[in-house]
Every structure is written in structure tokens, then in C-alpha cells.
């Protein structure tokens, strides 16, 4: 804390404080304007959205959310999104943690080439594989299932997760494991009693980031799911958008789905800002 305050001094000294506050206000305005617009439109009666002059603060109503529940299997979509995001987070973490441990602790000539092959495979564009994936999932009878999209997305998220976890595991002193090994601990005991507790911050961080990525993912659910039993919120918003009301697009409903998708993410960000930033910078900030 002390250190950071010292670093910021040369800049803050030059910027007159009013300039800082003006840019702060401008920044806040730009970031929050779309959020305001989305929330305002989702809570407004449909008729208030097509009035000029614009209604800035309509009388709030939950009517649009009730309409969604009544007219589309909205609660199913919420459940599917949750299951998909949680399952993806779990699968990605388990698979990545095992691999990251191997890369961090078992080193031999060529082991880093194997690691970089895995990590750099994240550069393969996801959309570039959807046609073959469609056929693979179809032949495995995983098309239109949450399990199918979970496997595919977990695979896509694993390389980055491995990369971050390796750097975290490397920071754990090997002496702790060494002592456990001498005491005759098995590999699973080392994982369960030492590494998981010690790397918990990293696991939480990557869990959060993967959860957000999965919750927000559109490509795989849109490409591989077709029925209400597996479609997610991200697909449902595109379907609500495709619908028409007598006045044009049903913006009050589109924005209601948008708010449903955004609120959990904003809550996560508010409560775990530090953890998320740690992961986004690949462990560069501790």
C-alpha cells in the first residue's frame, strides 16, 4: 500500500487535481451510460420506451421479467446457464490444475515445449473448429446437451487456466511438498492437504474468470443447442431479439434478459475485484 502510494506520486503531482476529477467523471459517465440505459429500459413499461421526449426515469415495474417467464422458458434458460457455467468452471479447474502441477513440478528437457504446445493452442480461433465440433458432438450424441457445450468450452478455457496456475504453483516453495514426501504422503494427499489450500487464491481467481467466460459464452450454445432443455440465456437474448412486437423490436424484453445476464456478473466483479484482476494479468499482480 505504502509502496503503491509512492509510485503514483510523480503522476498525481503533475495532474492538477481538478483535471483528475474531470476525467474521473467523464470515465464514470462513459462506463455507466449503457448500464443505466439497459436497467432503465428493462424496468420500464413497454409504452414508455417509445415516447419523445424520452422518459429518463420510468415508474419501475417487473412486468417485463414476468412476461419473459410467461412467454419463454426463461427459468429453464437461467438454470441452464448456471449449470453450464458451474460445470465448465469445475471441469476446467480440475483438468488444468492436474496439468499445471505436472508442468510446474516435473521438469525434464522438452517438458516446457509440451507446456507451450498446450498454452499456445489457445490461439486457435474457437469459431474455426465449430464445423468439425458439430460433427463430433453429433456422433457422440452430445449435440444439444449441456454436457457437450461444457466439454467444448472447458477445453477452450484450459490453456489460459493452465498458464496462470503454473506460475502460481511455481511460487509455492517446493520444501513443503518435499517434507510431505519424506513423511510418506501420497500424491493425492499432497494435492488435497498442501497444494489446493496453498494455491486457493489462484484457484478462486481462475474459477471466477472461467465462470464469467462460460456465463457470457455465446458461440457454443448458439451453435450446438436447439431445445429449451439446453439453451442458455445468451441464446435466449438472440431469440427475444429476433421476435417482433407491433412497435418494432421488443427492447424492454431484450434489455430484461440483458439485465438478468449482467447483474450476476456485476455482483461478482464488485465482490472479487482483486481476485479477478490477479487472474487477468496472468498473476502479475500479487
Amino acid at each position: 500500500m505504502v509502496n503503491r502510494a509512492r509510485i503514483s506520486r510523480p503522476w498525481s503531482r503533475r495532474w492538477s487535481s481538478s483535471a483528475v476529477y474531470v476525467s474521473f467523471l467523464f470515465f464514470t459517465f462513459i462506463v455507466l451510460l449503457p448500464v443505466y440505459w439497459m436497467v432503465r429500459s428493462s424496468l420500464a413499461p413497454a409504452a414508455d420506451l417509445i415516447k419523445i421526449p424520452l422518459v429518463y426515469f420510468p415508474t419501475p415495474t417487473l412486468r417485463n421479467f414476468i412476461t419473459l417467464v410467461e412467454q419463454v422458458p426463461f427459468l429453464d434458460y437461467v438454470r441452464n446457464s448456471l449449470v453450464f457455467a458451474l460445470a465448465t468452471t469445475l471441469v476446467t479447474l480440475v483438468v488444468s490444475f492436474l496439468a499445471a502441477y505436472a508442468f510446474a513440478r516435473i521438469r525434464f528437457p522438452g517438458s516446457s515445449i509440451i507446456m507451450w504446445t498446450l498454452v499456445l493452442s489457445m490461439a486457435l480461433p474457437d469459431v474455426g473448429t465449430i464445423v468439425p465440433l458439430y460433427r463430433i458432438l453429433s456422433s457422440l450424441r452430445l449435440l444439444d446437451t449441456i454436457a457437450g457445450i461444457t466439454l467444448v468450452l472447458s477445453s477452450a478455457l484450459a490453456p489460459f487456466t493452465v498458464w496462470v496456475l503454473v506460475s502460481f504453483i511455481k511460487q509455492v516453495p517446493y520444501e513443503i511438498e518435499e517434507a510431505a514426501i519424506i513423511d510418506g504422503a501420497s500424491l493425492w494427499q499432497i494435492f488435497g492437504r498442501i497444494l489446493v489450500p496453498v494455491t486457493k487464491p489462484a484457484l478462486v481467481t481462475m474459477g471466477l474468470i472461467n465462470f464469467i467466460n462460460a456465463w457470457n459464452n455465446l458461440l457454443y450454445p448458439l451453435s450446438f443447442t436447439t431445445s429449451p432443455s439446453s439453451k442458455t440465456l445468451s441464446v435466449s437474448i438472440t431469440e427475444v431479439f429476433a421476435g417482433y412486437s407491433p412497435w418494432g423490436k421488443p427492447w424492454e424484453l431484450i434489455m430484461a434478459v440483458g439485465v438478468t445476464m449482467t447483474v450476476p456478473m456485476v455482483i461478482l466483479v464488485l465482490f472479487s475485484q482483486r481476485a479477478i484482476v490477479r487472474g487477468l494479468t496472468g498473476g502479475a499482480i500479487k
Partner: protein
Amino acid sequence: MHQTYARAPSLARANGQPILAALSKAGQRRYVLFLLLIAPAFLLRITTAAYPILQTIYLSFTNLNLIKNTNEFIGLQNYVAVFHDYGVREALSFTIMLVVSATILELGIGMLVALLLNAAFVGRGFARTINLIPWAIPTIVAGYTFRWLLDDQFGLIPYWLNLLSGARMVAFIDPVSARIAVILVHVWKDAPFMAIIFLAGLQGVPQDLYEAARVDGANVWHRFWHITLPLVMPLTITMGLFRVVWSLGSFDLVYGLTQGGPGVATSVLALQVFREGIMFFKFGFASTISVVLLVVVAIVGAIGLWLFRRSEVSY
């Protein structure tokens, strides 16, 4: 198992890190353990990334089409067709335009935001928190929200513009303004991410470098250019590159904001792959567009790696 581990500590002590002699028996067991641990991750990547990519490349030479029910090897015909396809050509040029302009703007604005977030003022914690909101909002939701915000009849921004200047703003009818809209929304969504990376870099710059430079008479600009920037560059390029590559392969934003329109003016390669492949079931043709996309990613990646190697500094 015990034996395996019993060997490790002594070697670890000798080398200062857990490296094992390759040919010892214990070493072989470590290889087995290594393979077992990486197996799940590699199994996933091989079945859902490596094998599909190879299949994509193979399919790009076929006319596999689920609607017309064709599946023959047709050589380079798709490649010829791709470069005569108006949609793909427009998408290719806009993809490049979007990546270049959005990346430059995101780096510039991200740096300014990072400097703000690093300054000392009341409300800094609040600013740092809301900075993550554009990153956390689902891209598809951001796309629809801005489409509604820019709606020519009831959107807030055209409405305010009209009040201020009397002009009528029609963002999504004209190709140029639609493209500008996509680029700017992309910047809104991704510049905060760049700011986080820059901020991490700023916080990692050793303070004594600034002190020394000040003693030598360097001004703010010199200190920024010669100390801050070189030191934050490696992290920026690595993370920025991941982000750019990631966004090359996604179409969420244009899918929500413009659906590639008007016409195909704001379509990107990823959207064309999705349309031709998943909507029209032209698997062969879609795969060819995927290969074009792969080439673009490879070029961008190579440029990024080259920049990274040039930017590595030590202190």
C-alpha cells in the same frame, strides 16, 4: 510411489529445483506421473481442438453441404470461391480494419485510463471497480444495449445529438457509421481490460528508476516514454495478444450490434464462418473461411511475438 518421491528431494537440493535424472528408474516413474497428470487436458485439447482443426483444413478442400447433400473432394475450388465471395472479402477487410483500429485505440485509451486509476484521488477504488464492468458484461448484451442506445428513433445518443445540434443520427444504415460504431463499442468493451494490464505494469515499475531519472533532469514525458512504457510493454503485448487473438475468433459483438449489416459492411470472418457453416450447413465452404481466419490469426500472432521479443527488457 514412495521410492519415486524419495529420489526427488536429494536431486532437488542438488539442483535447487525438482529436476530428475532422466534415466534413473525414479525418473521413469516421474514421466509416467507427468503423462497421467497432463492426460485429461491433452485428451480434451486433442479431441476438441487439434483434431477438429485438422478436419477443418481437410473439409476446406471438399464441398460437404448438409442441405445439398454433397461431399466430394474438390481441390482448391473453395479457395477460389472464397476470394470471389463478396461477403468474405468484405468480412476479411473489416476484420483487419477492426483489429488494427480497435487495438490502437484500446492501447491508447487503456493507458490513459490506467494513469487515471493509478492517480491518487477520492473515488479511485470506485473507479477501479466500475472499470471491470465493461469487461464483465456479456459481449452479446453489450452489442444489443449499444444498438438500442444508438437507435435512430428512441436511442439516447441520437436523441441528445438531435437536441444539441438538430442533426439526425442514423448509425446503422450507412456502412461507414456502422463500422465506426462497431469499432467504438469494441473499444468501450476492451479498453478497460487493457487498462487493467497497464495498471499492473505501472504498479510494478520500481520507484527508484523514477527518482534516478528525475535527478538526471528527465521530465514527465521522458520518464513515461523511457521508463514506464518499456517496462509495461512485455506484459501488455502478451496479454493484449491473447485478447486480440481471442476477439479475432469471436463474432458476439457484431452479432448483437449490427448482425454484420448494413449488407455485409460490418461482418467479420468469424461471423461468416458461423453463417455459412451453422446456419446454411455449407460445411466445406465455411471450413475454407476458417482456414483464412487461421492464417490471419497466425500473422497477427507472429507480429505479436516479434514485438514481444523486441520489447523484453530487464531491470
